[in-house]
């Protein structure tokens, strides 16, 4: 029996992470800046004041530079599902492919059609047509995000499907369940609104630079006024939907929640870690080493945020490994949890039942096939556990997930205060004199990106080892290709995307220094 090369899995994961992280440097700015410049152009349309047109065109130039790299990095992500994750593509392509196709039909054409009008149409189409094109470009980008997030949410909470042993794949049975799953709704709203924070931080930061340089003060102040309001709205909505997301994680991916909080031993009335320093000496969940060197908790908050009950039991990693506690399962029902060992046993039963089913079908023994099918269906919820070699493999990277989560939350809180302060001082015409705050606003640009990327690290690293929660581990999803091929393409993309990023930042800086041009 030929064995799968695990370095291939690691390199394939590394390549996906690389391309996804790069892609996500450009997408949130497209979504956030797209909204801001659409509002700016609306003001121009309503008032006819050329200063708003000039402002719109300036931000639109920066939008265009960023958009190009987003497109370049995006294409590889879609095709990578096939090139590097071919088993995944077949196993769940019946469900996962549909949102991607719909994204292409509904969103990509809208974006690519109207962005041309947005850039080239100023003197070719009416003001109304141009404004509509700007909004439709933003709408197209947002719809695109919606569909890819629906697909991602389904990987975290697979529902609306059934496994077909004849075709050896999962097949969609309920489109609306896939589209409107609570995980999808929260994920879409959380991701899109958090992108507004990135867009707003960018506009506030760049405008602050103008104020520091005492250039384009009117444009900068107006931009800050608008961006800080949208940024604040983004933070509030992201906090609310983040709370909803965390609640979903508590019910559907409790291991991820435990990793996010560094919670090894579950308890009733669990506290939320506000600030914490993990103990690097802790290597295993059962080594009895204290998980934290330092921890400041908000009492009972984790229980409340997870289950809306201050005394609710939140399982830790040990509880999830050993089972035996009573909690809410992925379907929202109370039940006594089973151990990972038991899940592995059931998963192996499911995999074996599939093999037996196929054999029986080939032999033409339908009654025996039916017996195996029943065993498969009974145990299918744990199908992926059948591939897990060591039960400890189901624990994600705790330090990475923990620190990414807390970085995101702390920065989210920072931006709440930041946008309020910036808005208030700008409103009172006192912002220009607050040089420290203007400097901080420039630093806040990379902080917004760190916040946004951290969210994705929590979502993706926290769900490991699953590519489809409980159904398919990541290593079973990989293509059968040479590791050296993936190493080569990894290196190629790393170089190419880094050059693109450097070029983008360099062009952006030049454009910003140049400032807005006169309207013609």
């Amino acid at each position, binding site marked *: 029996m030929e064995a799968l090369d695990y370095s291939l899995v690691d390199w394939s994961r590394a390549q996906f992470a690389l391309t996804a992280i790069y892609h996500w440097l450009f997408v949130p700015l497209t979504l956030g800046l797209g909204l801001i410049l659409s509002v700016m152009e609306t003001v121009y349309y309503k008032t006819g004041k050329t200063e708003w047109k000039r402002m719109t065109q300036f931000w639109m130039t920066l939008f265009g530079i960023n958009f190009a790299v987003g497109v370049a990095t995006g294409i590889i992500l879609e095709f990578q599902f096939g090139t590097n994750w071919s088993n995944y593509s*077949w196993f769940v392509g019946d469900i996962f492919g549909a949102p991607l196709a719909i994204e292409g039909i509904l969103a990509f054409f809208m974006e690519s059609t109207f962005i041309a009008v947005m850039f080239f149409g100023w003197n070719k189409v009416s003001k109304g047509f141009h404004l509509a094109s700007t909004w439709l470009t933003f709408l197209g980008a947002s719809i695109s995000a919606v569909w890819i997030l629906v697909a991602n949410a389904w990987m975290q909470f697979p529902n609306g499907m059934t496994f077909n042993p004849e075709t050896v794949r999962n097949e969609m049975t309920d489109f609306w369940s896939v589209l409107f799953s609570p995980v999808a709704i929260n994920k879409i709203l959380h991701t899109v609104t958090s992108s507004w924070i990135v867009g707003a931080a960018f506009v506030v930061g760049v405008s602050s630079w103008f104020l520091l340089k005492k250039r384009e003060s009117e444009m900068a102040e107006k931009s800050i006024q608008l961006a800080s309001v949208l940024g604040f709205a983004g933070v509030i909505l992201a906090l609310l939907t983040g709370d909803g997301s965390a609640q979903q994680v508590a019910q559907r991916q409790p291991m991820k929640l435990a990793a996010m909080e560094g919670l090894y031993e579950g308890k009733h009335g669990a506290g939320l870690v506000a600030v914490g320093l993990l103990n690097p000496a802790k290597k295993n969940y059962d080594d009895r080493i204290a998980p934290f060197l330092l921890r400041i908790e908000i009492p009972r908050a984790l229980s409340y945020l997870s289950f809306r009950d201050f005394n609710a039991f939140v399982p830790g990693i040990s509880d999830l490994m050993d089972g035996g506690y009573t909690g809410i399962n992925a379907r929202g029902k109370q039940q006594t949890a089973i151990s990972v060992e038991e899940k592995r046993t059931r998963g192996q039963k499911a995999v074996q039942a599939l093999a037996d089913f196929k054999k029986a079908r080939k032999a033409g023994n339908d009654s025996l096939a039916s017996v195996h099918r029943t065993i498969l269906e009974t145990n299918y919820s744990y199908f992926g556990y059948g591939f897990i070699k060591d039960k400890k493999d189901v624990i994600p990277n705790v330090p990475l997930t923990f620190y990414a989560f807390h970085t995101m939350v702390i920065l989210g809180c920072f931006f709440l205060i930041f946008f309020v302060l910036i808005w208030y001082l700008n409103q009172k015409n006192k912002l220009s004199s607050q040089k420290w705050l203007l400097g901080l606003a420039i630093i806040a640009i990379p902080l917004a990106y760190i916040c946004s990327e951290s969210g994705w690290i929590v979502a993706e690293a926290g769900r490991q080892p699953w590519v489809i929660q409980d159904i398919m581990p990541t290593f079973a999803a990989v293509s059968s290709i040479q590791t050296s091929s993936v190493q080569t393409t990894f290196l190629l993309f790393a170089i190419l995307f880094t050059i693109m990023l450097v070029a983008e930042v360099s062009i952006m800086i030049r454009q910003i220094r140049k400032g807005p041009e006169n309207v013609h």
Partner: protein
Amino acid sequence: MDYTFLQQYWWFLISLLGALLVFLLFVQGGQSLLYTIGKTELEQTMLINALGRKWEFTFTTLVTFGGAFFASFPLFYSTSFGGAYWLWMSILFCFIVQAVSYEFRSKKGNVLGKKTYEAFLLINGFGGTVLLGVAVATFFTGSDFVVNKDSLTNLADPVISRWLNPLGGLEALLNVRNLMLGLAVFFLSRVTASLYFINCIQDEAINARSRKQVFVNIVPFLAFFLGFVIWTFAGKGFAVHPETQQVYRLPAKYFINLLEMPAVLTLFLSGVLSLLYGVVRTLLKPDYRKGVWFTGAGVVAAVLALFLIVGLHNTSYYPSNTDLQSSLTICNSSSSFFTLKVMSIVSLIIPFVALYIFQAWRAINRKPIDQEEMRSGDHQY
């Protein structure tokens, strides 16, 4: 609406997207002609701006083509992309470097310099067209792979589709027939690009050089295209037994398909005629500017017909030369009935999408590009 109808309907949509993509490759063809038609910097700027308004359509069509293939025929996605790794990665590389080139080329601080971005456009213009043509040619000539869905229960190595050639898809470039289609697509893209320049740029020198390029490129296009078509129609194809679903080799299978599907035959012939009409009329009438529409429509019709020939009428559209029974057909590789039905409902929006694309295209191209517009600074690239 039964399962077979939905499979055929989605093959039709995939084919239509593929056909539109081949027409939209005029952007790539135009890039490859940048220095041939544009002799001065101003002329090159005009060419770049003419193409720069459309490059995203080509890009989007390619991405949607991939997404639609994934959704409707996921076994193709997993087998071809996961196997012909280097062929697809090379294609993607050609398109990645294109995506930033328009935006960055003339911007200050672009790190790599204007010439590098123009080199990227040339790479995309030559590589993108030839490689895509070669990839599509394998639909007719076959590849070396096996598909075994039972592998999923092999806990140590559960991969279903395996590519057997160590060149990872690049071996397709060693097949003369594949190369012929690749080169045909390349020269065709240069013909449509030249016709597009004639249509949307108001400049005597560009107009004259574009007309010359129509002639220069139509000749090799016809040679490679006819060579590929005759070889393919005369050679053995990959037929599927309608009852047993067994795949077998059948002489002149694709020609038989053409004859037994009169609508496709009509589509193919009218496509070729329309393609030639646009070219010939442009060459004969110096003030004629609308050849791109006739030739473009002809390209779409002819390519659509080729896709329909290889996918419909009990044919394997992605054959395996190693294991005939691993070959992919629209029946054994498609999504479930439910998924195809859902996506078919969504696809009803396509005419609306086509309508707004048409309106936007018209609005932007209403006034041809000229030197005055480029000098005014009212351009992007």
